[in-house]
């Protein structure tokens, strides 16, 4: 029914989709897998009308699709359940389900709430979900909100003649096993009335629910399988698609850490997000934390970066007990935080490369108490050369750089500030393969210079490949510790066992 052929989508510095073709047949669940940055979400957004492709064509039952917005997609019967939920939390369930469709319940400018609530109730009943439609959405659990989103997408049935196509973008990433089963049961029962595209990076789930699976890699579809004819390990190999893991992560350059303990936590706990965390990071050591969303590893990294206060246990930086209330004292202690949200917390996007590099330590470019613009520019030019940052020059605005080059600017800033401890929060998210390798190279350089590094990452391979030591967290606790010296790297299955 849906045919996407030769879709191309380019963002500044990144070719997100290069010549992607997929089709979705009636009453079918199509799985879409790939690593972060493979282009899954971009493709979904193209199908949902949020992005306009730069090339290629989209047809639905032979009809050319012209979509400028998700609203246009809705007219064709294409609905999306978003990865980051798109519900307005302080509206009721019914208001959310019919958000933007109030006209259907409006007479003389007045909304008939009773009719809307009744319609919402019918809609939820159809998928067999029992939720109070007058409840505020913020009061629902995450899983229940996901169901509301699904119900919302299904309301298209009431206004569109043809069969619906529902796009599910990583709907399971924050659900627990029981909720996932409920979701899958719904999808199976709805298959008679709609087709689905299901995106996830959990391969078992994709195989369990899908009829057919497309594997994406670096912005292209590299394989298509019938779900019954392929196994998760096979898919994994295609998805990752590189044999020489050790070389990719520069394992040969992994050196013995030094003696000095740079970060030490004892019985650390915060806000119920995590508790009893003990960890030590030595100079030159890379410690990775593995864990699913909600395991508490994000909060541990944010505590060490100074973004989150701990309320139990103690933390020592280079031997001094600390209690950070904001990143400022952490930076003064020599900690540099490389955030996942590069565009929000990593760089001041509207300032230049030079201004971003000097930001954490202005004294490095000051002379006689005043900022020396020449010195600042020379410093940036020097980093641009050393890190091979692709940019017109030190005055270029950071928002115009590609993700990999932005990440290098963030690292250059912390090196300028002389950080002895780096917290890498998903340092390669959204980067293409080449940029990733450059970041790995840099991480190894820093480690060789004695910088202590805490790492959390999207993939287990990256965590295992880069780290000297891997900690596994589950439900706010450390559940396992693995030595990850070269040649003795733990395998993913061991880690996974401790994670879930």
């Amino acid at each position, binding site marked *: 029914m849906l045919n996407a052929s030769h879709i191309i989508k380019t963002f500044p510095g990144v070719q997100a989709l290069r010549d992607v073709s997929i089709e979705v047949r009636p009453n079918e669940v199509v799985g879409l897998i790939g690593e972060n940055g493979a282009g899954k979400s971009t493709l979904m957004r193209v199908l949902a009308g949020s992005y306009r492709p730069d090339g290629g064509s989209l047809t639905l039952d032979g009809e050319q699709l012209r979509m400028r917005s998700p609203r246009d997609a809705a007219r064709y019967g294409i609905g999306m359940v978003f990865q980051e939920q798109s519900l307005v939390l302080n509206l009721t369930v019914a208001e959310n389900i019919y958000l933007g469709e109030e006209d259907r319940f409006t007479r003389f400018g007045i909304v008939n709430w009773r009719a809307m609530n009744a319609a919402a109730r019918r809609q939820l009943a159809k998928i067999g979900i029992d939720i109070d439609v007058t409840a505020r959405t913020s009061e629902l659990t995450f899983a229940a909100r996901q169901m509301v989103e699904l119900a919302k997408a299904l309301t298209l049935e009431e206004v569109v003649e043809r069969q619906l196509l529902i796009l599910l973008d990583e709907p399971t990433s924050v659900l627990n096993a029981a909720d996932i089963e409920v979701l899958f049961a719904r999808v199976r029962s709805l298959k008679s009335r709609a087709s689905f595209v299901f995106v996830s990076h959990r391969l078992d789930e994709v195989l369990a629910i899908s009829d057919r699976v497309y594997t994406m890699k670096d912005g292209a579809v590299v394989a298509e399988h019938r779900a019954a004819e392929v196994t998760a390990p096979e898919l994994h190999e295609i998805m990752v698609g590189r044999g020489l893991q050790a070389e990719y992560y520069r394992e040969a350059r992994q050196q013995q850490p030094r003696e000095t303990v740079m970060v030490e936590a004892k019985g650390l706990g915060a806000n119920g997000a995590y508790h009893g965390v003990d960890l030590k990071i030595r100079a030159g050591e890379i410690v990775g934390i593995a864990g699913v969303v909600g395991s508490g590893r994000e909060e541990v990294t944010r505590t060490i970066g100074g973004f989150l206060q701990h309320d139990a246990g103690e933390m020592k930086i280079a031997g001094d007990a600390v209690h950070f209330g904001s990143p400022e004292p952490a930076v003064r202690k020599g900690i540099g935080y490389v955030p996942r949200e590069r565009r929000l917390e*990593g760089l*001041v996007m509207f300032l230049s490369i030079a201004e971003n590099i000097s930001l954490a330590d202005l004294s490095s470019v000051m002379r006689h108490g005043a900022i020396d613009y020449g010195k600042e520019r020379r410093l940036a030019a020097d980093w641009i050369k050393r890190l091979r940052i692709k940019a017109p020059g030190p005055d270029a605005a950071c928002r115009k750089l590609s993700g990999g080059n932005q990440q290098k600017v963030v690292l250059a800033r912390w090196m300028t500030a002389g950080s002895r401890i780096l917290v890498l929060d998903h340092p390669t998210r959204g980067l293409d393969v080449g940029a990733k390798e450059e970041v790995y190279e840099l991480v190894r350089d820093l480690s060789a210079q004695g910088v202590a590094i805490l790492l959390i990452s999207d993939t287990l391979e990256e965590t295992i490949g880069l780290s000297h030591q891997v900690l596994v967290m589950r439900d706010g606790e450390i559940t396992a510790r693995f030595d990850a010296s070269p040649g003795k790297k733990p395998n993913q299955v061991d880690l996974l066992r401790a994670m879930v």
Partner: protein
Amino acid sequence: MNEPFPFRQVFEGKWTQGAIPLVLLVALLLIIEIAAPGFLTGETVSLLFANTAVLFILATGVTFAILLGGIDLSIQAVASLASVILAQLLPSLGLAAFPLAILSGLAFGTLSGIVHVKLRVPSFVATLATGGVVTGLALWVSDGRAITIEEAGRENTAWINASVAGLPVVVLISAVIGIAAFLAQRYTRFGRQAIAVGAGEPAAWAAGINVDRTKIIAFAASGMLAAVAGVVLAARLSSGSPVLANQLLLPAIAAVIVGGTAITGGLGGVARTAVGALIISIVRIGMTFVGVNIFLENMVFGAVLIAAVAITIDRSKIAVIK
């Protein structure tokens, strides 16, 4: 897409928003010179500067608040209060009334900053409220009346209305303030951090900048300069009044924005405000010249402000305009 001339790129350039006002200023001066040849003599130019001084000092202060991505709506109230304090205290304290009046501005500016930062109240609400408190205080202290600076007091304000080497003292005062503010904004840690906070607060915070302190300093500076403007105005008019600076908030903010500082923060500076203040001043003189009713001035400034923001706002930076 191949454009014959990269208009977009030029307009997106950082310097463009600073260059356009300068071109506008020169164009305005040329128009005046053509309409009234001989207008641009040393005397009229020095008069123009003198008439711009108060507006410029006010606008310089609020520039810091705007650069941060905030706004200070209390400046006219603070300036008026300072004029009242000066007029009240001159007879008894003499010259010591000046620092006291200016300190009142510093105090209320700091208060606005602390309310904004510590109670997490948006700056427009915090300063609107502080402005109300300050106006109330000024009305109470002055009993709601203008206070004329009598002969005895005028001895101590005469120096402000004097000239040094042919230059009015008010021009010298605003030049000193302008240069100090320019240096503070461009060459100090505070100035750079203020720009960074305005351009991207979460990233600035994550880079270890003390955002709270930077904001409090900016609002303190804004309050203090508002008080300086109030004191100068009082000396020039020989009067202090709780409503003395009431018509100055709009032109001051218009001067900042017309000069090329982004209302969203992070881009601009004191030098641009100098250009903006001169533009506003010339427009005002031009209106008097052409015979526009003086009561209509703020109508024009309101329109100018809206136009300036609408033209210059960077829509890629903000998704939702509240």
